[in-house]
């Protein structure tokens, strides 16, 4: 089996600060995702990367940047943290873009903005 590791688990930032979340997977999966989890709103796709060197915007990309440094890693940057923002960011991977639905998730990174 494999694992998805997200760092840090908890991130506290200041309003306006640029904050970066990192994700590593050892499944050797092609496709990686960043989702935002908010209570009552489900999981919303921020960015995804079909293969190494690819980057695609999801439904919630405004205010975020992403980077697929190599096949195993995918980073997400909050470009300007919003005051009182609280959310959990989930990284996920799938074998390939063609494999519908089988996503493997990390445990999440919880962001708090003071």
């Amino acid at each position: 089996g494999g694992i998805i590791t997200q760092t840090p688990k908890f991130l506290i930032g200041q309003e306006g600060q640029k904050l970066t979340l990192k994700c590593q997977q050892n499944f050797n999966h092609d496709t990686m995702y960043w989702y935002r989890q908010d209570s009552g709103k489900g999981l919303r796709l921020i960015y995804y990367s079909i293969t190494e060197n690819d980057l695609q915007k999801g439904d919630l990309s405004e205010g975020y940047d992403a980077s697929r440094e190599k096949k195993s890693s995918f980073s997400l940057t909050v470009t300007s943290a919003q005051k009182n923002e609280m959310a959990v960011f989930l990284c996920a991977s799938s074998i390939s873009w063609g494999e519908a639905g089988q996503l493997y998730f990390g445990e999440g990174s919880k962001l708090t903005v003071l």
Partner: protein
Amino acid sequence: GDSVTQTEGLVTLTEGLPVMLNCTYQSTYSPFLFWYVQHLNEAPKLLLKSFTDNKRPEHQGFHATLHKSSSSFHLQKSSAQLSDSALYYCALSLAHAGAKLTFGGGTRLTVRP
């Protein structure tokens, strides 16, 4: 656009009673439907996936039937266990959209003794 609706945000049950969590969807195409489960402080993981041949998927006592006529994929279990307490997400994907998933808002199930 495509969407998934889970009408109950919170469901509380007594152990041993049946579970039914609602999921309906809107899609121009015939989607695949999924249920994901997330226990406290854990990662979400796949619970069930709809089949193209109308078989009913089952896992850990849970099952769901895709009804295209009513655009539904409700999650059911005959007898709730304490360990079923978790956050449940219904999601859909489209064959032409690859592995991209659209999630519902989630239902938090609490099972009490």
